[in-house]
């Protein structure tokens, strides 16, 4: 356990940051979504994600045991300390870009949480099993939108293609695996990233085929890596807004 403790904290922060940053991005659609139903859907998905982030952060905070709680992990770290994948920090773009981003993430999230539901770490298994029920709905929704836009009008198809093209390269660090993941997978605690990537590929192919969309070649190596805190320029701007209150009024609570 102690051998894995630092790995585990790092891994929990990745899971928490992915959910948190994706949830924060989704909130930017509040008041701006193209239809009321879509706005409600996106806010619901965002709320699920922020709730899941809290569960991961609370566990990470307990292991860290340095006095920081889940709120402080969410709002008081600097950009380089965030471990989320580059995909979720990308700007929302138009609805097709958001849909592409969500679908590619949801497919990964679904297969990751499926694997983590069987984690030998009971706390991880419990959080994952809970989140998986929610993420199943997220994936169903975003998959249906990829299909509808991809196989819809000429304009929607062009936009869907452009949306996929815009974010596809960020699937490299989403699917890649490092030593932390490999050690935790070997210990039965973390998800096997190779198996997740294969399942992700199958889901993407299935949905793209239904939408008559071509599946791009696997994304190639990208010099940035969210897992190591090397982010695109978009994360800092997102954090400036997300962290404003806690930075301006430290320890403010509701």
């Amino acid at each position, binding site marked *: 356990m102690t051998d894995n403790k630092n790995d585990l904290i790092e891994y929990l922060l990745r899971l928490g940051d992915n959910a948190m940053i994706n949830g924060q991005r989704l909130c930017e659609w509040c008041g701006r979504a193209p239809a009321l*139903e*879509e706005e*409600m*859907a*996106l*806010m*619901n*998905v965002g*709320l*699920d*994600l*922020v*709730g*899941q982030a*809290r*569960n991961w952060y*609370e566990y990470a905070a307990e292991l860290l045991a340095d006095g920081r*709680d*889940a*709120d402080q992990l969410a709002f008081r770290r600097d950009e380089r300390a965030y471990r989320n994948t580059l995909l979720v920090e990308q700007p929302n773009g138009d609805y097709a870009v958001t849909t592409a981003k969500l679908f590619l993430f949801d497919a990964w999230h*679904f297969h990751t949480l499926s694997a983590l539901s069987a984690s030998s770490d*009971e706390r991880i*298994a*419990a*959080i994952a*099993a*809970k*989140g998986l*029920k*929610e993420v*199943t*709905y997220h*994936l*169903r*929704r975003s*998959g249906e939108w990829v299909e509808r836009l991809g196989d819809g009008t000429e304009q929607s198809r062009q936009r869907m293609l452009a949306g996929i093209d815009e974010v596809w390269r960020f699937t490299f660090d989403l699917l890649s695996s490092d030593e932390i993941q490999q050690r935790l997978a070997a210990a039965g605690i973390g998800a096997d990233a190779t198996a997740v990537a294969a399942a992700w590929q199958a889901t993407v192919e*299935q*949905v793209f085929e239904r939408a008559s969309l071509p599946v791009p070649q696997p994304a190639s190596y990208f010099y940035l890596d969210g897992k190591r805190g090397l982010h695109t320029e978009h994360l800092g701007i997102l954090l400036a807004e997300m962290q404003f209150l806690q930075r301006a009024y430290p320890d403010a609570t509701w």
Partner: protein
Amino acid sequence: MANTSEIDALFGGSPVAAPGSEAQPGLIASDGGAREADESDLPRAWQVLEQVMDPEVPAVSVVDLGIIREVSWVDGHLMVAVTPTYSGCPATELIESEIAKALEQAGFRAPRLERRLSPAWTTDWISEQGRERLRVYGIAPPSGSSSKRSLLGEKDEVCCPQCGSHDTEVVSQFGSTACKALYRCRSCLEPFDYFKCI
């Protein structure tokens, strides 16, 4: 982001238990003064919980919803284990404080609330009475079993709570709260909420 100790703090903290008091029934405060809890107090606690309504769907109680996972005595305090419906359900903390308040008012001294994630809540735990109350309230109860679902495709068969027609269509999988989807009835044309299966 309240943890259990913060929740306890809301209700005067958790007094230190007397040595050897594990699983001992606690004190019940009543009009006649304090008394030792007896066998009738656990069923009475459940009766109190049956009066605590879900703030987002006030037609059903927390017991109807199946989110109360355990009620027992721990260190002389009544312990209630509650499971959240959704990870991000904003009502979770409110529900916990409503439960504690109701129990305190019924004489249970400093009840302890535990948030229990596992096993994850499923709509299969909503009682028959809860389903009927949802229907009367105008929300279609979850249909079928949460375990028999496939990922893509597969639509739920949902009955209109107004006219009972099966001819309904989904408007959005995400409705006014995390637990509901938005549907429309093709027979009576009314839109309605569906308590979705998870």
